[in-house]
């Protein structure tokens, strides 16, 4: 039955050409992505080298001056972004680290565009998430609906075939075609991914991503076969399926984020900054000025060393003050960023509830997470940079603290390159298994959709049974 159905689909050449056209377009998209990623890799490597050179060439200066000079830490390029760019265009590609502040990542590719920039987002993954379901619908809506298909169905039933076999055969044929399309899409992406020096872990992630897409397409195949069996008219089946496709792949993924943001509003950048500065100045309670807290530290030190003036301390109080200020501002920034990320998490939870209406809402985060182009991967990078920033700045502050300026000099000077040689940026990357665990809810949703669609196909088989 499946083989016959595949033969019939093969004869419908328009769909084959359409699928081929989509494949070619996805291939073109992957090729442009690969070119872009290679350019980004070169750019980021050059910037990292230049920043390291600049940092080391500061020579012998006041360590706190170096802390203000700062340095930029570019984000890594993700090889699987060639297949699923995910949020890449909406995330900053570099963080500028300096004393006293946690700067957000800057240089988002989406910035400084034009009206055309709002149309970005076509990728091999998007083709599988939005266009492939459309192809599945077009290939399968008339397999059992419409006068010709119904007549054939009656003949097949009359010849003794069971409805389950008829529905199952059509479903297997459609799913096989969808699987083939997924494989072809992965196939055209593979050279571009390998070109980005993808490691074994990336290839494993790609396989898991492909699995998610297959599950998603199976759900669409089953829904299509079910609609085709449930509606006698091909037109009704097509309109119903197209309406579902438009809602699931276009409308819900666009409306759900707006609803999520309305339910859980994100603070504006100026409000966020003002809140951080207020807390740095006046403490969490708003009545604990930083100056007073520093005075308490000073009093503690004077008591510890049993001296009456900071000048008599065996350590440099300027360094103590800088260390205190950095700890204070870092803790404040951390608290506020945690709150901001908590808002993001609540928004994403609200977004996920829309997966009831659209499996695409569950598939997109699944695919991005394994491609390392989601916010979680960006957060790993940003947290790694912040950890590096704090260690770097406090190393400089410690140097100030432990060294009083020579007599007649205002500041203690140090060779910045030697002082900070041991402080290196150690990017942290989530293990694949951790990503998988975090994505279990999305997997469960996809499985539930596939199961629901298969049940619906079963119901359609029962209805068809009555035709005989």
């Amino acid at each position: 039955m499946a083989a016959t159905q595949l033969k019939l689909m093969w004869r419908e050449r328009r769909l084959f050409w359409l699928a081929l056209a989509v494949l070619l377009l996805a291939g073109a998209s992957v090729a442009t992505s690969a070119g872009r990623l290679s350019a980004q890799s070169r750019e980021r490597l050059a910037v990292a080298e230049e920043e390291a050179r600049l940092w080391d060439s500061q020579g012998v200066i006041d360590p706190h001056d170096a802390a203000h000079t700062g340095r930029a830490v570019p984000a890594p390029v993700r090889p699987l972004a060639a297949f699923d760019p995910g949020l890449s265009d909406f995330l900053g590609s570099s963080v500028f680290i300096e004393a006293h502040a946690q700067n957000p990542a800057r240089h988002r590719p989406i910035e400084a565009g034009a009206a055309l920039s709002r149309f970005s987002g076509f990728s091999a993954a998007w083709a599988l998430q939005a266009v492939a379901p459309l192809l599945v619908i077009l290939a399968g809506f008339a397999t059992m609906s419409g006068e010709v298909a119904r007549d054939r169905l009656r003949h097949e039933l009359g010849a003794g075939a069971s409805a389950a076999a008829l529905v199952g055969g059509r479903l297997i044929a459609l799913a096989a075609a969808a699987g083939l399309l997924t494989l072809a899409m992965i196939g055209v992406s593979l050279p571009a991914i390998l070109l980005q020096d993808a490691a074994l872990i990336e290839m494993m992630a790609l396989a898991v991503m492909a699995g998610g897409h297959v599950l998603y397409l199976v759900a669409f195949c089953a829904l299509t076969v079910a609609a085709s069996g449930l509606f006698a008219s091909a037109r009704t089946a097509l309109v119903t399926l197209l309406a579902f496709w438009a809602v699931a792949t276009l409308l819900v993924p666009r409306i759900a984020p707006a609803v999520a943001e309305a339910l859980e509003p994100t603070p504006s950048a100026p409000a966020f900054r003002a809140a951080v500065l207020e807390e740095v100045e006046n403490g969490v309670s708003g009545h604990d000025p930083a100056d007073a807290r520093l005075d308490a530290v000073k009093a503690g030190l004077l008591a510890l060393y049993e001296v009456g003036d900071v000048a008599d301390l065996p350590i440099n109080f300027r360094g103590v003050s800088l260390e205190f200020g950095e700890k204070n501002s870092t803790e404040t920034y951390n608290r506020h960023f945690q709150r901001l990320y908590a808002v993001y998490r609540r928004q994403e939870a609200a977004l996920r509830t829309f997966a009831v209406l659209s499996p695409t809402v569950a598939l997109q985060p699944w695919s991005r997470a394994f491609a390392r182009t989601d916010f979680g991967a960006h957060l790993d990078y940003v947290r790694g940079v912040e950890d590096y920033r704090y260690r770097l700045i406090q190393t400089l502050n410690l140097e100030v603290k432990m060294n009083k300026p020579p007599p007649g000099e205002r500041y203690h000077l140090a060779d910045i390159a030697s002082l900070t040689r041991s402080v290196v940026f150690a990017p942290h990357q989530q293990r694949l298994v951790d990503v998988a665990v975090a994505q279990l809810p999305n997997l469960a949703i996809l499985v539930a959709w596939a199961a629901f669609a298969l049940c619906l196909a079963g119901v359609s088989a029962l209805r068809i049974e009555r035709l005989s």
Partner: protein
Amino acid sequence: MSALGISGYELRRMVRDPALPVLLVLLLVLSTVAARNGADWVEQREAAIAVIEAEERAAVALLRPRIDQLPGATPRSQPVLPPGSMAALSIGQADAYPFAASVHALADSQIFSRLSTDIGNPTLRAAGRFDLAFVVVFLLPLVLLAATYDLWSRERERGIAAMVLSQPVAIGPLIAVKGLSRGLTVLLPAAAIIMAVAAWAGATSPAGLAALGLIVLAYGGFWLAAAVMINLFARRSTEAAIGAGTIWLAVVVMAPALTLAGLELAAPPPSEMRFATALKTRDAAIRERQRLHRVAHPTTDRTPPPRIPDRMRDLYADRVAADGELAPLIDAQQRARDARRHLLDLARFLLPSVAVQDALDRIAGSDADRALAFQRQALEFQAERRRWTKQRMDLDAPLTLAELDLLPRFQFRERGSAFQSSVLADLAALLVATLLILAAARALRGRAATP
């Protein structure tokens, strides 16, 4: 059969079709949600601007009691770009450009970096904004195609076409009148719905609403022409539906996305990362050179000492000199950005959906050109602040308490109306595309003459 007769028949058919009210109600609901989103965005932007203005007032209040002890001090000013009067219509490029600057006479010319970061959830941003512009660009064509995709194919399918063609009737006018009657039955209420919800969301400029109406009608006209073209080829309604879906996907999604990807590869944007590093390197070198120069040639103390300390004059002179040296680097980067944006702007003339998006962004005031006009005006304001500061330094006249509130303030000067030349160019591009399709349809009208 007269044109009026055909038109009346089509109108009656459309009115009896239960799908029409469903489509229009759907459009109304989606437009209302989108307009509400646009209005929410305007509120959020205004709230952010209020925070910035409060910050500026707080800085002035902080300076007020200490102004006599700080001769030469001037408060930081924070120019802002307010949302336009039709802002609820389209968020467009408003998130992609800075809407505030931080101006100080003694600070460098990178005045947009401090306040320009968008901290919205990238997952939500990547999904795209659900605003009225999205409804017009992406969803309105689907509504129109749903109402017109089987304009002639249905007649063919049911055998009515053969009967009609046996009458003394010219096929071209027949299809044209059918398309126009059926299309306008959907398009006119759709345009009214979109304009009404835009006005409800606060986009109340009469010229803006008129421009919006024109754009919606022109874009609708393009899709009606596309529906006519599809029906010349399709012999079955399902074929027509597939054709309509494919053309929608090609025009609204794939062609713009692939054009953008191609342009990114052929003319990549200038590297902002490299620019930032190069600027930092150059700035550090200039400042070090200036520091060494000041150490070697210290400014001699004057007697009696000026009211504004010479240290401030040195700072000012060094900053202005540094900016002068950095200007070629900054200008080169700006030229590269402009060249790329120009290319993206040009591409819209070949892509009807992008031309409509561009026109809606411009009507809403969320286009790149308005954001860039703000940047230019903010930089001019900084230059004006510097000239004012220089004048006071030359006169050795520190800012007084009475003058604090009289300092020149930034006011964004709007450029262009809702019918600015770029919007007219977008309209012209749409009309040309529509006329080309109609011309092709006219040439191919014989295909519809076979039942």
